[in-house]
């Protein structure tokens, strides 16, 4: 039947999943190995989600930061076209520079968000095992003023106890969106869970009702984290920040 065979796909928006990966010297060894391994393994899963999704297709972008910053590709790529080149760890932790760089790409003109049929808000996953060694405040301030960033799904993975969770919390906007991992296996599992969950929710039309995509992602990740040894999410009751508490009284 001719007419029905001429059917074309519905227009789909694009949802870009950003990996921001700390490749400073302290990540060297099995941490960076686990990141490389986990991302390679999650890409086919993202491709499956993308190909069967009538709402949006998923593209991936990855930025590594150490002494400087570097995009693995100079544009977001479909998961199936994203050939992962292993990242190597050395140097400092230029998180501020990474924030500025991300802010400059979260735009339509000259940035990464130029999809012809429009976008959904992106999902951004930040992985770090330390604290910024540059002036991250101005970079983060720039990022926080960006409208794409404001509406993005933001999750941070703190690798080990040396990760600066306050900074990660500032980045994501809440302590619930920061997941801490204590071993290599947990790191791999959490990367998969976070990438899949944020892509699944971020690339679909939002659900009706009151819960936001960010809240939904955080809730699902928290549920999954309970079953992963060596991974934990901050308990919202334990995150009362004394300095903020004092500010309130000041």
């Amino acid at each position, binding site marked *: *039947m*001719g*007419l*029905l*065979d*001429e*059917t*074309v*796909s*519905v*227009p789909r*928006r694009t949802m870009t999943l950003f990996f921001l990966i700390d490749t400073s010297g302290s990540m060297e060894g099995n941490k960076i190995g686990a990141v490389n391994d986990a991302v390679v393994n999650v890409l086919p899963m993202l491709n499956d989600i993308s*190909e*069967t*999704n*009538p*709402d949006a297709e998923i593209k991936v972008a990855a930025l590594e930061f150490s002494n400087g910053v570097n995009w693995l590709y100079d544009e977001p790529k479909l998961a199936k076209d994203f050939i992962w080149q292993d990242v190597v760890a050395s140097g400092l932790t230029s998180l501020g520079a990474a924030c500025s760089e991300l802010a400059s790409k979260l735009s*339509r003109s000259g940035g990464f*968000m130029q999809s012809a*049929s*429009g*976008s*959904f*808000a992106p999902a951004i996953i930040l992985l770090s095992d330390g604290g910024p060694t540059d002036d991250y405040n101005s970079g983060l301030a720039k990022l926080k003023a960006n*409208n*794409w960033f404001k*509406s993005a799904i933001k999750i941070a993975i703190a690798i080990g106890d040396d990760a600066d969770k306050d900074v990660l919390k500032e980045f994501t906007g809440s302590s619930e969106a920061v997941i801490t991992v204590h071993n290599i296996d947990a790191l791999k599992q959490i990367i998969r869970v976070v990438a899949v969950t944020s892509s*699944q*929710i971020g690339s*679909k*039309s*939002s*659900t*009706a*009702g*009151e819960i*936001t*995509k960010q809240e939904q992602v955080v809730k*699902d990740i928290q*549920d*999954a984290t*309970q*079953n992963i040894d060596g991974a934990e999410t901050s308990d919202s009751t334990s995150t009362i920040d004394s300095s903020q508490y004092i500010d309130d009284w000041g």
Partner: protein
Amino acid sequence: MELKKGARVNLTFGNQATVIKELGRGGQGIVYLVDLDGQRMALKWYITPPDEKFYKNLERNIRQGAPSDAFIWPEYLTQKENGSFGYIMKLRPSDYFEFGNYLLARKNFKSFNAMLAAAMKICNGFMMLHRFGYSYQDLNDGNFFIRPTDGDVLICDNDNVMPQGEKSGIMGKARYMAPEIVAGGIPDKYSDRFSLSVILFMLFFANHPFEGAKVVACPCMTETFEKRFYGSEAIFIYSPSDKSNLPVRGVHQNVIKRWPLFPSTLKKTFIDQFSEEKLWHPNTRMIEQEWERIISKVRDELVVCPHCHEETFVDIEDNKFKCINCGDDIDVTKQLKLNNRSLILTAGTKLYINHDNTPDAEVDFFPSDKNLLVIRNLTQSCWHIDTPSGKVKVVNPNEFLPILNGLKISFGSSIKEAAGTKGEVIA
């Protein structure tokens, strides 16, 4: 907790099911292939168990049984064990494909006939669901599985079906929900009816009824914008009173191509159901039976073109009788009148007298004379024919009557749920 291959789960009625392998996973849970007393079934297992209310609701739904054979309904509940629970349902046959596949053009309906059958079956499913007192909470394109050859439909993910007025907490996609639900309301049969119209529109036109120029112009579809475009500021793409959200050439290609092909009856219904009044006054939305009547009317206008032998629509209301494929005129002088319906009789056209998806008759040629058209009885019982000269003839199953003016058909008990239907041939 996830289940491993070979794991055994205990069902509440005593039996055990054994996990064979994982079939897929979604936001809420994992579906496993299981063996239950030698039968292959599906087990949906929740990764984290929903609350007690959910369990009780599932238990009640299982007790009540499926509203119709369109539903892949929960059949057995597991005990609460391994930190969670799940339920057993039938396996989905492999020749049914998720509705999303049709939207992505990975699957196409084999015919308009199959498309209309799917529409009819979905309507009927909703009607039965509401007749049982339920409402559909998390409706989206992942719930419907359709067979491309004949349009048969299976409705899945029925664990969130709840009695009307209750809220499962798991809500559907904003794109498929009524504006009042997008704004935070509780789903009920009125909001389901809106969702039904959206699903039917997408089934027929393979684009979304509210996604036109306005929506394309939005660079980043945030949740706030979704609440506007599918809620407070929803505008039907073919709204006669507001042209600001028309479909865009090169983007919404399917609807631009298909909208002119369908009969006015269908287009008028969508214009009405997506009008401001129906958007904002849920209880004025059309009931499912009325949708069935409209789809049946559209099916009455689907005929086989005598020239190119492809399916085409005629538009009785608009007096348009040109084939949508070859452009030639369709002869509509031969008709079967049924109450206020007029079924056009062209060779190869199937006739559906009631609202199910089994054809009751078919127009054919007399075996030895290609100039004589006949109506073949595809039902299981005989028909009685009164001729204009007063004779009474019997047409047994698979036999036929000639298409001659004035023949009156009594369908007797041959048409399910429409016993005693009578028709007359006009030629």
